[in-house]
C-alpha cells in the first residue's frame, strides 16, 4: 500500500498543466516508495483529459465521470476521490496548489484523516516517510516537514516541477459520478477578463507599483506584458497600488496577495517592501526597473535598470515585441 495518487484538475474538458507537474512529483515519490501512480479525475466528459493523463507516465487513470459532476462541488468531488484513494491504497495524495487544489485537497485529507502540507515546493520519501518543503511566512522562511500520519497529502506550488511527458498508455478505469446531495456546487464561471493569463501560471509576470504615479499609467505594464505574446505574461501589482484601489486584489503579489515563481519577474516602480519580496523572491530571474538606485528591490534583482519607468518601459516593450514577432 505505497501507491501515490494524483488528483487531476480538469476545466472545460481540458487537463490543467499544473496537474502534469503533480504527476512528475508523484512519479518521483512512487519510485522512492515502491508504489504506483494512480491519477484520479472528476468531471463530465473526461475522455480527452484522461487520454492526456494516460500518456503522462502514470500507471493507472481513474475517471469519475458523469453529469452529476458537470460542475465542481468540493464536497461531492472530495467524497468520491477519498473513496477511490482508499481503494487504491493511497500512501500519498498530490494535487496542484491551484484555486481548486486549495479548495479540494484539505477536504479529501480530512475524509482520509491524514496529514496535509500545502503549497509544497519539493516532496520526498525517505525510508517510507513522506516529507515536503514549503515556504512559510510568505517565503520569508522555508519549512521542512515530515508526515506523522498517513496518508500524506500535499498540494504543489505551480511552476516548481516540470510537466510530465512520460509517454506510455495507462489503463483508464471509468467510475460513474455518483448522483447525490451536494452541499456546495459551482453555478457559473465568469471570465474575469478577455483572455488574461493567470498570474500563478504565467511564464512572465510584469508588476507595477507606486512608481507609476497614476492608475492609468498601468497601460505601460499591460503593454509590456502583451509584448511577450498571447498567454505568456500576466500583470501583477504591489500592495500599495491595490490598497489605493488602482488595481484589483487578484493582481496583488506579496504576503497578503499571491505568491508567484515565474521564470521571469519584472518589477517596475516597485521599491521592494518585505511584503512584496516575499511574494516573488522565488522567481527564477528578477528584473527591476526603478528610479531610485538604492531601492531594496535591486538587492534581489538579477538585472536592474536605474531609470524612469516612463522612458525605459516603452523602449523595453518595443524591443521585446520585435524579438517575439520574429520568432
Amino acid at each position, binding site marked *: 500500500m505505497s501507491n501515490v495518487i494524483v488528483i487531476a484538475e480538469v476545466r472545460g474538458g481540458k487537463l*490543467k498543466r499544473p496537474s502534469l507537474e503533480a504527476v512528475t512529483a508523484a512519479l518521483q515519490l512512487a519510485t522512492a516508495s515502491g508504489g504506483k501512480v494512480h491519477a484520479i479525475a472528476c468531471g463530465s466528459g473526461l475522455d480527452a483529459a484522461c487520454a492526456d493523463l494516460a500518456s503522462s507516465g502514470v500507471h493507472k487513470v481513474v475517471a469519475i465521470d458523469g453529469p452529476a459532476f458537470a460542475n465542481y462541488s468540493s464536497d461531492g468531488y472530495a467524497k468520491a476521490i477519498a473513496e477511490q484513494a482508499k481503494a487504491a491504497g493511497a500512501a500519498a495524495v498530490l494535487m496542484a496548489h491551484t484555486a481548486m487544489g486549495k479548495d479540494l485537497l484539505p477536504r479529501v485529507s*480530512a475524509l482520509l484523516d491524514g496529514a496535509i502540507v500545502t503549497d509544497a515546493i519539493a516532496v520526498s520519501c525517505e525510508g517510507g516517510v513522506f516529507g515536503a518543503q514549503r515556504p512559510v511566512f510568505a517565503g520569508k522562511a522555508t519549512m521542512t516537514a515530515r*508526515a*506523522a500520519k498517513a496518508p500524506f497529502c500535499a498540494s504543489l506550488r505551480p511552476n516548481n516541477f516540470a510537466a510530465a511527458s512520460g509517454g506510455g498508455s495507462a489503463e483508464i478505469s471509468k467510475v460513474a459520478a455518483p448522483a447525490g446531495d451536494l452541499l456546495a456546487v459551482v453555478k457559473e464561471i465568469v471570465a474575469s477578463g478577455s483572455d488574461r493569463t493567470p498570474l500563478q501560471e504565467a511564464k512572465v509576470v510584469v508588476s507595477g507599483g507606486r512608481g507609476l504615479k497614476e492608475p492609468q499609467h498601468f497601460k505601460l505594464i499591460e503593454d509590456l506584458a502583451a509584448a511577450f505574446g498571447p498567454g505568456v505574461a500576466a500583470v501583477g501589482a504591489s500592495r500599495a497600488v491595490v490598497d489605493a484601489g488602482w488595481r484589483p*486584489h487578484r493582481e496583488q503579489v506579496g504576503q497578503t496577495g499571491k505568491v508567484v515563481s515565474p521564470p521571469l519577474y519584472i518589477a517596475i516602480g516597485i521599491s521592494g517592501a518585505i511584503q512584496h519580496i516575499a511574494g516573488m523572491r522565488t522567481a527564477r530571474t528578477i528584473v527591476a526597473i526603478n528610479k531610485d538606485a538604492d531601492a531594496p528591490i535591486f538587492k534581489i534583482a538579477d538585472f536592474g535598470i536605474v531609470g524612469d519607468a516612463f522612458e525605459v518601459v516603452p523602449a*523595453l516593450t518595443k524591443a521585446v515585441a520585435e*524579438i517575439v514577432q520574429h520568432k
Partner: protein
Amino acid sequence: MDIVVCIKRVPATDAAIKIAADGKSIDPAGVQFELNAYDEFALEQALRIKDQLGAGSVTVVTIGPKEAQKELRDALARGADKAVLLTTDQWVYDGASTAAALAAWIKTTPCQLVLCGRQAVDSDNNQLPANLAGRLGFACVTEAGKLTLDNGTFTAERDIEGAREVVSARTPAVISCQKGLNEPRYANLKGIMAAKKKPFEESPAQLGAPAVEIVSLALPPARAAGRIVGEGAAAVPALIAALREAKLL
C-alpha cells in the same frame, strides 16, 4: 444564525523573520504580533450577517497562546458577542490536528456558519477551513470575495485562475474569506467598554499530536547578487542581451 469566527494571532506582515535556536520555530524577540489580516474580513462579515438578520450570535475562537487574549478582546470590542481562547504554548502550524481540535469544539456549541480568514500569514497553510468543513460535514467555500446570504442558502464568489467561480451552497457551512470581501470596522471606545462585560472563556486546547512534524525551519538561500545593467532607456539593449543569454527571450 449562530456564527463562529476562527481567528489567529500572527507576526505582523512587515516583521522580519529570524529562526530560533531550536531550528524549528521563529525567534519572537522584537516581533510585533497582530490579528491575522484575513481574519479581519471574516469577523467583519460575521458582524454584518448578524446585523442583516437582526438575530443570532458571533463567537470568536482561537487556538493560541495566552497573549491572544488581546486579539480576542479586540474582536469583542468590534462587536463579537463571546470569545473563546483554547490555549496552547506550541506554535499552531499543523492544519489537520488544528482542524480536528476546532471541529471537536464547534460540535459542542450552537453553530450554523463558520467564518475563517483564507489563511494565517504565519504557517500560510490555506487548508484549515476546508479540512474543518470535511470533519464537520459542512458545505465549504474557500477564498470567498463576495458573499450573499438568503434564508439558509448562500451564493459565494471566488477567484480562480483567470475567472471567477459563483458557488451556491447551504448552511451549515464553513467559508474562508478573501481580502476585498468587505471593509473591516475598527473598535470604538463604546465597543471597548462593552467588551469588558462580554463572556470570555479560556481552557486548554485539546490538540492531538501534529499530523505533520517540523524537521527544520530555515531562512531561504539568499539570491546571488545581481547587477545593474545600466541607466535609462539606453540600458535596454544590455537587458535584452542578458535575458536572451538566460534563454528568457
